[in-house]
């Protein structure tokens, strides 16, 4: 079921268009990756979803209704540029931000207790934000983002500034939130985490959406018919057996086993090639090599022109 959608969003600034008829659709209980190079228009879109700015054209829907200020309490937002009041105590600050989202003081305090115990940060309650390290501040900010149990959580570069251990902690939290029924829009440059976490993605470049869909489907779509084959036998027999039906890209001998990477010739099926291989060598494994999201990202962005956009607009990205 669709939880959130944006239809034909256009946002213009003085001298440039940040978003040009961008549409996205985010399903319930999924993690949606919002990808794109710097300056593509991601932050503009995220700000529009958070109702921080309004689009010049287009419509937004939340649970089938037009997006309105009432929905603010059901949306959580972790901006890329993190920020908290430096001189304010951690606990007091969390309470304040939670109450701005509509929680009562008691409820906010109860939930904060749960999260502070979970992250083992109870001792920070009376500390001022400026006394915490950057990573610690990030943790606090993550708690603030999810405290009011929003149905839609928007995370802009959630892993930046975390060490690998804490990045992993946050990654697990994100997956747990999805388990609990939350929907998450994840904007990141970290393609590894996109492959690990995201169900669907949309790729934005130069104000336009250039790719969207299910991560697995996209990867399939961009497959290049490349396979890794491990076998026991003679290398020459191996290459001779498939002849012109495929091309050897690389091979490596590892003890008795040889690992070879081949790309099928146009129109050839894997089955045909295997059929030719079977009599020639002893097969151990066959595995398709799919392009990484990173490769797809770079390829698609390069297709649509220069990756770097001159930052005519003062808004960050």
């Amino acid at each position, binding site marked *: 079921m669709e939880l959130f959608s944006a239809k034909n969003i256009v946002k213009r600034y*003085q001298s440039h268009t940040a978003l040009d008829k961008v549409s996205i659709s985010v399903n319930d209980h999924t993690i949606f990756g919002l990808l794109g190079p710097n300056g593509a228009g991601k932050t503009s879109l995220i*700000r529009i979803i*958070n*109702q*921080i*700015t*309004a689009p*010049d054209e287009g419509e937004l829907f939340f649970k089938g209704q037009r997006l309105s*200020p009432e929905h*603010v*309490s059901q*949306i959580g*937002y972790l*901006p890329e*540029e*993190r*920020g*908290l*009041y*430096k*001189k*304010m105590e951690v606990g007091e600050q969390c309470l*304040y*931000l939670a*109450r*701005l*989202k509509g929680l009562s003081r008691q409820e906010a305090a109860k939930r904060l207790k749960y999260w502070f115990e979970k992250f083992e940060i109870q001792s920070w309650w009376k500390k001022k934000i400026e006394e915490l390290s950057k990573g610690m501040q990030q943790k606090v*900010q993550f708690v*603030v983002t999810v405290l009011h149990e929003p149905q839609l959580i928007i995370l802009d570069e959630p892993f930046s500034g975390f060490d690998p251990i804490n990045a992993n902690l946050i990654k697990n939290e994100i997956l747990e939130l999805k388990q609990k029924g939350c929907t998450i829009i994840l904007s990141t440059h970290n393609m590894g985490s996109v492959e690990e976490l995201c169900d669907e993605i949309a790729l934005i470049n130069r104000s336009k959406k250039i790719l969207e869909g299910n991560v697995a489907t996209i990867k399939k779509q961009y497959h290049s018919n490349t396979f890794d084959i491990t076998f026991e036998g003679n290398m020459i027999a191996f290459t001779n057996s498939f002849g012109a039906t495929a091309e050897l890209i690389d091979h490596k001998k590892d003890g008795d086993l040889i690992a070879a990477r081949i790309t099928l010739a146009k129109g050839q099926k894997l089955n045909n090639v295997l059929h030719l291989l079977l009599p020639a060598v002893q097969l151990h494994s066959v595995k398709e090599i799919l392009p990484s999201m990173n490769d797809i990202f770079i390829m698609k962005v390069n297709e649509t022109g220069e990756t770097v956009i001159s930052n005519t607009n*003062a*808004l*960050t990205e």
Partner: protein
Amino acid sequence: MDKILLILKREYLTRVKKKSFLIMTILGPLLMASAVVIRVWLSMVPEETKKVVVVDETQVFTQKFRNTENIRFYYTKENLEETRKSFYTEDFDILLYVPNNILQAQTVQVFYKKQPGYGILEYLRNSVSTQLEEKKLIASGIDISKIQASKTTVNLVTSKIEESGRIEKKNTEVLIAVGFIGGALIYVFIFLYGAQVMRGVIEEKTNRIVEVIISSVKPFQLMMGKILGIALVGLTQFLLWIVLTAGITNAVLSVYMSKKYDTSMVAKTFSKQEISGTTQNQLQNQLQMPDTYNEIQSTISSIQFGTLIGCFLFYFLGGYLLYSALFAAVGSAVDSEADTQQFMLPLSMPLLLAFFVAQAVITNPDGAVAFWFSIIPFTSPVVMMVRIPFGVPVYQVALSMALLVLGFIATTWLAGRIYRTGILMYGKKITYRELWKWLFYKS
């Protein structure tokens, strides 16, 4: 509305809890009270008496100069040379040399050990010139005693005739003081707390917390919460200052006074005078004191303090709201406090102007300048405050207040539109043209 209250509460509490607030709250009244106490103390401490030795070659001035509390004259027969030599061994502070050719040269010389003050020098000059004038008058055959008898001083007793025909004595100096203090306080508070609003906005913007907050509340709510919260901080501080200043001043003065004078004695002398008939002159002299005193008292009691305080609070809040919204807009348009200067000028100009006009209004509280500047919202808080103790027609006050309310609604609207765009702009130098464009962005 709930959210504005939440924001207001945070803005208020974080500021009131700060150490700097506590320090300012205590230091402010101490400074003000010490200003009052020091002035009173200075007027009571007798100045050191200067001993002036006079070398008078003409012999005309000998024994003629009048001694005062501060100056005592001694006359010597020795000549200048000898007196100068012994100047340091003797106990004199100043040597006044009147040469023989005084009538032609019109010059006397003053020698000193330590530079005497302006007052002393003036007194010496006056003494010599009066004596000279007298000598000249006598020489031309005029009777000095007649001239002295014809000297007259006039007391101005200022009264106001009410519409009802009632006559009310007023002491203008008191009115000036009350009005001017009120106006000046408003002027200072607008700058002080307007700047706090601006700093708060810049802090939120550079911290980037603003993005988190405006994903929960509207930018306008955030701005209003901040402005109103800081207004309450201002009021709190103001009330604490008043209470503490009055307390400290009273305490110190009463302790000091009771030591110095027996107050009951003073009261007794005043009451006795009204019954016992002393000489005409003496009575008048002594009555002068209680007369002005009574006048000040009656003026103070004639000022309707309820109205005055009500007006003060209204103009204080109105002026603050008008300006602080603009301060917030300036804060939103810049990345750091250092960048605010280009936008500060149009904000501080009208305020400064109001302050200067207020000084002119004192001499003519009902003139055209006073009228217009107390009607225009940008200057009315300061200027009207100065006028109010003199009595201002109700319709003028009403007009001025109504315009002030409209004024701050207008500036708040304007500032809100600049603010909501400005707080999301980073790393760009903003021009006035851009601010103008922001006014028309779709929200």
